[in-house]
């Protein structure tokens, strides 16, 4: 049973981590929480649903079609995030730190209700991407879907790591995250880098949305809320603004939930209580989260 539960926790944690990365990237660069992120992930899932109906004609079914759907939904979600930044956050960037936060909540409500009104108020069936096979490993049942989700999430995290640590744009992102004004003086265009960060964060959120749809088989206009809140928690738990922290926090939260509902009597009711209690304890002991927020070195 433990192995099965760990597998369940890994899948859940992988999705949380991907979403948490979006929160953390944006926070790292603007020190603001993009509360519309959960709607970006919801839109990613809806775009994938639309594409799933259109794409087989272009790419055929199977893994190519799946990858096409994935990449296009990611790009779409990234673009939406860039547009949100351009119209809802950038004009407010220099006013106060509170204004963009409120505006983010507004965007979130607009997007959620927009989908509610224009698309559907009900759960829509999300197509199964591949035939689901089950493999038995050490007594645990692992479905091919779980393997795909985990592999896709890890791959994306690997790409992000490479991008941030080993490319010139990644270096510029890190520079802006350290000190956006100085970076601007050094010939980096901060607006461009911020837009890029929103694109990357949104694309990861979109990917998480698609994985989410695949995992649960149905999507709905408000699907982003709960995982969004959980992933935000995960980002804070790991240390918001810290990429490794977001991944760590996501997996910790995934495992916590699974172990709570698996091993505590009537734990399914208590799992959110337990997860958030742990968060509060961590923050009381280590206010900057497990891996800590980067503190700019002042000379």
């Amino acid at each position, binding site marked *: 049973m433990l192995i*099965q*539960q760990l597998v369940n926790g890994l899948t859940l944690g992988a999705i949380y981590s991907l979403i948490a990365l979006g929160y953390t990237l944006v926070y790292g660069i603007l020190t603001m929480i993009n509360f519309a992120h959960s709607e970006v992930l919801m839109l990613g899932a809806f775009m994938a649903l639309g594409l799933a109906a259109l794409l087989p004609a272009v790419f055929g079914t199977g893994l190519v079609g799946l990858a096409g759907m994935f990449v296009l939904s990611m790009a779409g979600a990234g673009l939406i995030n860039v547009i949100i930044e351009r119209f809802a956050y950038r004009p407010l960037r220099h006013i106060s730190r509170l204004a963009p936060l409120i505006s983010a909540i507004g965007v979130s409500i607009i997007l959620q209700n927009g989908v509610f009104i224009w698309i559907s108020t009900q*759960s*829509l069936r999300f197509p199964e991407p591949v035939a689901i096979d089950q493999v038995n490993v050490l007594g645990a049942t692992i479905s091919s879907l779980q393997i795909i989700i985990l592999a896709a999430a890890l791959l994306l995290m690997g790409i992000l790591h490479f991008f941030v640590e080993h490319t010139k744009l990644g270096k510029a992102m890190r520079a802006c995250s350290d000190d956006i004004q100085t970076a601007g003086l050094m010939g980096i265009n901060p607006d461009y880098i911020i837009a890029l960060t929103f694109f990357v964060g949104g694309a990861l959120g979109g990917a998480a949305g698609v994985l989410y749809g695949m995992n649960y*088989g*149905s999507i709905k206009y408000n699907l982003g809320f709960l995982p969004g809140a959980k992933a935000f928690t995960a980002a804070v738990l790991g240390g918001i603004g810290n990429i490794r922290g977001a991944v760590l926090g996501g997996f910790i939260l995934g495992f916590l939930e699974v172990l709570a509902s*698996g091993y505590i009597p009537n*734990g*399914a009711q208590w*799992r959110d209580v337990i997860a958030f209690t742990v968060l509060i304890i961590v923050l009381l002991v280590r206010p900057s989260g497990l891996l800590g927020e980067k503190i700019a070195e002042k000379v």
Partner: protein
Amino acid sequence: MTFRKALAVAAVALAAAACGPKEKAIKIAVAVPLTGDMGTEGQGLRRAVELAVEEANAAKRFPFKLVAAPYDDRADPKEAVNVANLITSDPNVIAVVGHYNSGCATPAAKVYARAPVAMVSPAATNPEVTAQQDSKDWMGPRVVFRVVPTDDVQGSYAAMFAAKKLGKKRMALLHDKSPYGQGLAEEFKKGFVAGGGKIVSEDGISVGDKDFKALLTKIKSDPSKPEGVYFGGLYTEAGLLLKQMRELGLKDPFAFISGDGSMTFGLFDVAGDAADGAYLSIVGVPADELPSAKKFVDDYKARFPNDERKPFDHFGYEAANIIMAAMERAGGPDRAKVIEELRKTKHEGVLGTTVFDGKGDTTSKIVTMTRAVAKKRAFDSVR
């Protein structure tokens, strides 16, 4: 047109609309969820009541025009109370068909009692909906009626079915902590234990939860080896449970049994093929199998050719007809007299003969067990 101009035009149009002729028609309110997860069920009920009202108008049963006035409670108890206040403040509303959810019907009934306006529920099955009228602080007369049998009947029927028909001895219990879901699960437990069965575990989930893998893994590896799950709740969670059960390898003969809240076509949208083989009980008899509902089924199809008929629609149609019959006997649209006449109901209709007992519940206690067939998007009765 500039924005300001457009605004001005809109304001004038609004003002004109507000001053238009007053609606003279007498209304039967349909207070159901019209949007959200239970929206399709509510829309079905709205259509059923509309059909009943249109038939009455066409037959000139009343010297005035009758309309079905839909109100959206969004399956949310708070919204249900708002809606109930709106309804009671409209003097043209003569009675209410609703609410769909027990969680909505219970608080809304208190508002109707204060008015008082009669409420005839076509779907709320928690015993508390009518039982609360016996409490000391009940303000107003008894106004609640319902044409569906209650959860104690449904839960104990499912328990008997699990023990006798399926031969199960150990079951795991799940519910969504709502008045409906928990009530149903508790009635199942009572019946199953009384029949010599054993409930090996009991867990609550939350409406809106998506991930039940951990919980199902626990049930799967329970050392006392449950032979099935009974779930008290609605179709979204039921569908996700089914899907994740199948992914974990919990398939036949491991049974999934649930109630009428899960028995709707939405289940197939959530669970897909995983819905196959799920046992779902429904109060009363499905309209397709009722000889007395033949005309209703045909008329519905003719009036709404593009809409799927929902499992509760014949109850909604019957509720509207019972209200209209009471209004006929009352000699006109008088709220208080309609309540009096509803008590004396002996209605021959789609559901056979409906008579209300002292609490306002129908005396009919029939429950049918069905089995989901994903390919047909249908629920076949199990005999």
